[in-house]
């Protein structure tokens, strides 16, 4: 620890049982970026799921909008230590999208416009734990927050909720994504504070 700067507090440190260890609460919605913000016109938007067995499932924007919708309200936890409670989204559950997908794969890699990728076990996308969302707080999802559509996996750190998501590739072997190969934890459970490799 360095020398102490007199009267320096920094941001407030919160204590709330809904807050995972090391996190603090924000009321705005910070934007972190690892590259330029992609602009994806809706008439060219497509979402795809493919399997190691060679199946590919695709949805256009129109087809996607026709799927059953859900409106999850969830808490978000970013690995940079901010958390935001009670965020309201609208989108399609991965359970709906995976309904007709037949595969023995156990891993998933989400990939995005702009080249971003993130990996997670397939089971973390199922059973009401993940969505592809296109509305936030009653408004269409802004490009800065991943619009037109992003993955939402709120039980893991937010870098797993890939912005500008383009598809999910199912895999027989785990394939670490952008931050997972750059030092961040492969799984990223905020309650076990799995921030970096080795945590």
């Amino acid at each position, binding site marked *: *620890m*360095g*020398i102490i700067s*007199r009267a*320096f*507090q920094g941001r407030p440190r919160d204590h709330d049982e809904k807050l995972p260890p090391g996190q603090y609460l924000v009321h705005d919605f910070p934007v972190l970026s690892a590259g330029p913000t992609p602009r994806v016109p809706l008439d060219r938007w497509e979402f795809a799921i493919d399997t190691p067995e060679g199946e590919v499932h695709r949805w256009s924007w129109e087809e996607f909008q026709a799927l059953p919708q859900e409106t999850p309200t969830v808490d978000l936890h970013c690995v940079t230590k901010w958390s935001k409670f009670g965020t309201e989204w609208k989108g399609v559950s991965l359970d709906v999208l995976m309904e007709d997908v037949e595969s023995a794969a156990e891993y998933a890699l989400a990939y995005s416009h702009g080249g971003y990728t993130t990996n997670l076990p397939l089971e973390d996308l199922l059973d009401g734990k993940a969505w592809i969302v296109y509305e936030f707080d009653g408004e269409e999802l802004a490009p800065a927050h991943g619009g037109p559509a992003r993955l939402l996996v709120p039980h893991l750190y937010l870098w797993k909720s890939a912005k500008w998501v383009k598809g999910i590739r199912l895999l027989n072997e785990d394939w670490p994504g952008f931050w997972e190969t750059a030092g961040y934890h492969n799984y990223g459970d905020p309650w076990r504070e799995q921030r970096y490799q080795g945590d």
Partner: protein
Amino acid sequence: MIKRLTWRVATVTEIRQETPTARTLVFDVPGWPGHLPGQHVDVKLTADDGYSAQRSYSVANGDDGERVELTVQRVGDGEVSPYLTEVLEVGDQIELRGPVGGWFVWRPHSSPPVLLIGGGSGIVPLMAMIRSRGKSDTPFRLLYSLRDPGQLFYAGELEKVMAGVEVAYLYTRTAPPDAGRAPGRIRAADLIAYGWPPETAPDVFVCGPTGFVEAAADLLTGLGHDPAKIKTERFGPTGG
């Protein structure tokens, strides 16, 4: 073993208010190795429970022994710049690491004319270059873009006529009555009127918010300046 950069204790010896939201902090940094104009330092603040925050700032003064000056603009409701601009007092201590960055620097022995283009607090590293010019016969021109006269840093010093340094103020919103230029963002006409022509092959340094630097660099290359002679320092999204 070669030593990597380490944190040094810096003690505030003097504070000068530049504008209502910006001030210059003068530090005494024992063991400071010296710096080149344009280099920056990392500042670290530590709270009594061990929490710490770090930001990067350009050095404002020329190389001067163990004396380091930073000019800090308060940014939004961040956690570092409000502390540095409102709480820190003479005698207080923080930690500094540096100097860092060997690219965006002017080396006083280089001979071509120098064109400095600063937007807002982007003036800071350019001021370090002006202050380092000393008796060098390299001619300098500074284009200083600022919102209104109330945002001017280093007012007294810039207003004094410095032989070999020409200063043009580009007000973007409100100009004083005698400005002779309608308020507005930097434009090609400004570079033609107050800059150096490309044929003189000036060393160009542009510093400011990302959008400002982008615009100025595009105008410069559009006028025929060699992109290899244009060095830029963008603030990006400063975390305050």
